[in-house]
């Protein structure tokens, strides 16, 4: 399945992340996952929220530079080896992963993995086959 991931440009300065999350909090947006990729001057904040469309509107209105991307999200059993199995089958088909992050699922014993890959469609097909 795909989720809407929102990426936001934030300067690498004290208080910037708090400033941003406050905007979400004030609008009652719930964060489900969060990842920061940082450089010396700036960071790219990647989030998954409960209501991406509303969140996007709010972020846009607040003047942030942002992008919404479709990221592949999969749920795997929370046990050793389950991620490797998926990654190996993607690698076999030549799918390249740009980045990935994981977060706990509310469903007991499962973990959610977000995969940003170079070919969403193909990756999705491979994973469907794997599950069937």
């Amino acid at each position: 399945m795909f989720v809407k991931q929102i990426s936001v440009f934030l300067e690498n300065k004290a208080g910037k992340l708090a400033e941003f999350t406050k905007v979400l909090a004030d609008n009652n947006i719930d964060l489900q996952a969060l990842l920061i990729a940082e450089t010396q001057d700036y960071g790219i904040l990647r989030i998954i929220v409960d209501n991406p469309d509303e969140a996007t509107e709010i972020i846009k209105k607040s003047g942030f530079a942002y992008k919404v991307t479709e990221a592949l999200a999969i749920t795997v059993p929370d046990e050793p080896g389950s991620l490797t199995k998926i990654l190996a089958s993607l690698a076999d088909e030549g799918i390249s992963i740009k980045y990935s992050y994981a977060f706990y699922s509310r469903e007991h014993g499962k973990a959610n993995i977000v995969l940003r890959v170079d070919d969403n469609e193909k990756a999705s097909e491979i994973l469907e086959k794997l599950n069937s």
Partner: protein
Amino acid sequence: MENYYQPKIETMPREELQKLQSERLAAQIKHVYENVPYYRAKMDEKGVTPDDIKGIEDLHKLPFLSKDDLREAYPYGLLAAPLKDCVRIHSTSGTTGKRVVAFYTQHDIDLWEDCCARAVVAAGGTSDDVCQVCYGYGLFTGGMGLHGGSHKVGCLTLPMSSGNTARQLQFMEDLQSTILCCTPSYAAYLAESAIETGVRDRLKLKAGIFGAEAWTEEMRHDIEEKLGLKAFDIYGLTELSGPGVAFECSEQGGMHINEDHFIAEIINPVTGEVLPYGEKGELVFTSITKEAFPMIRYRTRDICVLNAEKCSCGRTHIRMSKPMGRSDDMLIIRGVNVFPSQIETVLLNKGMSANYQIIVDRVNNSDTLDINVEMTPDLFSDSIAEISKIEKDLVNSLKAMLGIMAKVHLVEPKSITRSEGKAVRVIDNRKLY
């Protein structure tokens, strides 16, 4: 005892000097009116003919020449000698938009080198000296100007050009250089390196001729102490020839303008009104001996004060103060002329935001240039690799445009402070003037 390279001219009684200026001015105006349609049109527009210019008292009747004129006339529009008589060009740093190309006949080169030789002799140079020239050689006038002056004096000349500090120090030590010519910030850097590497005590430097950028008295004392030399200021601009338009004598109290070649005026930069000596204003020059590329009332945009008091060195030529600022927005960074508009051009060409800030500072005596640019929603992508590519591309384009490296920092949209809705474009933290 003060030494002169051309004692007769350098100590010429003022009345005689002014008479010489008047003759040369009248001849120069006739020359440009007859040979340069651009000047003729400007004079016709103001209703001035060569007959109206009999001497320096008539100078104010002539129209000013600005950098815009130079751009408009680029490249040959102000050429006053046949191209076949020209032997060289030099050019200001900068871009197509702002570039100035100056032409020289052999006569022009000779006189320019004389001017530089006066500066070398005023700094104590003789044929016994070893003169290390670490200004850049090439289109920039610094290297070849001082090189020519050093030659004329008969110094053993080391045409080092800029950069490669380890090699500079090695030659300085092995060949026992006595005179150093470079930008003051590079001199400060060399001083620190010499101390760090321990060669300082084995150096024989006695004088430094430093110019092409603004520097303070504090910096002068610092360099003098660290390198054990006497530091002399030198002033010039490519439009007029290069370094050596004015130079300091042993009194170190302002730079003597080579008035037999250049007539200096101070004007109110807003009204254009000529101000008396002693008042602060924009420096305007008329080159009265140049053949190929004469400048008539050229506005330098440098703000300074002229001093006609007699100098105890014996020279009769008036002195100009160090430039105290600019009447335009030009920045001089590591000796290179930078206009904020050049930076803006690059940013806009690259699809960047028009909201940017230029921050200039001096760290360890070396100028730094940082540019903050606001990220835009259009440019932002989810990939650091792509954003880094944009940054690298910007840095390369800026280097190509400016000739120097700038650090680019991407900042958040609308994060650059605006005063009255307009962003403050340039922050110069160097406190140079």
